[in-house]
């Protein structure tokens, strides 16, 4: 039997969120946290959470699992449970719609703010734009982001200034386009980021790297952006 404590909040019924305790029979198996949630939903069908691919590539089921942000579908109990207890809370700092479901609007806005699409002022050729394997290799560790928000909601700088600091995910994406040899809007992109908040609120504490379910390193990407700003500004 596994003791599970889940953050509950229903906007139509609850004034305030509360923690609800469950007991789940895992059958002694090392289930994924998402499997546990399905078992909980069989007990109480009102329990609400997002899920889709269940294999860690869609980014739906980011949540705070025993104090650490992660994807429920690829977090096995053996990785997160201590003292036989599992505590599930929504991702921090963003408004809770219901139970484990948060309103990700601010997170998406920050993504959109960095103009997350390829910009190239030259007319497109009849075939693809050529790119050497070395140039392409620069995008590794960047393009794999799944927008699950685990990183940004683990970042204190994002907590305090979610509307001004772009956050690790957005900045990783910003660098993904800065680093793309096919993108020509480098100057415009950098100009948009050169203020005291957007990039420079990162203090390199690497909470983002610590929780990224895809093993990406936004801190490093932010460092690259800073260096680009540096060589542009000095």
């Amino acid at each position, binding site marked *: 039997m596994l003791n599970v404590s889940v953050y509950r909040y229903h*906007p139509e019924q609850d004034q305030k969120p509360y923690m609800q305790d469950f007991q789940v029979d895992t059958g002694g198996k090392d289930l994924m946290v998402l499997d546990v949630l399905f078992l909980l939903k069989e007990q109480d069908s009102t329990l609400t959470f997002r899920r889709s691919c269940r294999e860690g590539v869609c980014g739906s089921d980011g949540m705070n699992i025993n104090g650490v942000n992660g994807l429920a579908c690829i977090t096995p109990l053996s990785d997160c449970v201590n003292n036989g207890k599992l505590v599930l*809370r929504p991702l921090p700092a963003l408004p*809770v719609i219901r139970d484990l479901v948060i309103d990700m609007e601010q997170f998406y806005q920050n993504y959109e703010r960095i103009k997350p699409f390829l910009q190239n002022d030259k007319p497109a050729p009849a075939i693809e734009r050529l790119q050497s394997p070395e140039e392409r290799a620069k995008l590794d560790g960047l393009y794999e982001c799944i927008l699950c928000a685990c990183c940004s909601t683990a970042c*204190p700088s994002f907590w305090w200034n979610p509307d001004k600091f772009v956050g690790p995910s957005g900045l990783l994406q910003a660098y993904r386009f800065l680093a793309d040899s096919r993108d020509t809007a480098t100057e415009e992109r950098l100009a948009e980021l050169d203020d005291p908040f957007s990039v420079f609120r990162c203090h*390199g504490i*690497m909470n983002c*790297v610590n929780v990224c379910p895809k093993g990406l390193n936004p801190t490093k990407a932010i460092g690259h952006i800073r260096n680009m700003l540096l060589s542009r500004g000095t």
Partner: protein
Amino acid sequence: MSKNRPVNLDLRTIKQPLPAIVSISHRITGVMLFIGLIFMFILFDMSLSGAEGFASAETIMQENFLAKFIAWGLLVSLSFHLFAGLKHLVQDFGYGEELSSANVAAKVVIVATVVTALLAGYWVW
């Protein structure tokens, strides 16, 4: 849309890795040093105000426990703030941007501060 939505930000429930703790401590020691500036400036002023002032500054630092403790506290804060700052500089040059090295760097800052705190204590007393 309702603005009354709760936010999950109970800091007691969120685990913070070592580099994060070092970072917030960096800030706290910074604020402490800012507050301690008044103490440093008064002492500095005193020491340069003349032979008499220099002597009384010396006396205070040799005999007043509170002054010693403040001085020690500021030295500890200063060393932590300095080491953590150096860590930042090193990181700015692209080193220690991996999780493992960042953890090591955070540990180095803490160990260096503890060592300095002991030395500073020995020195002040």
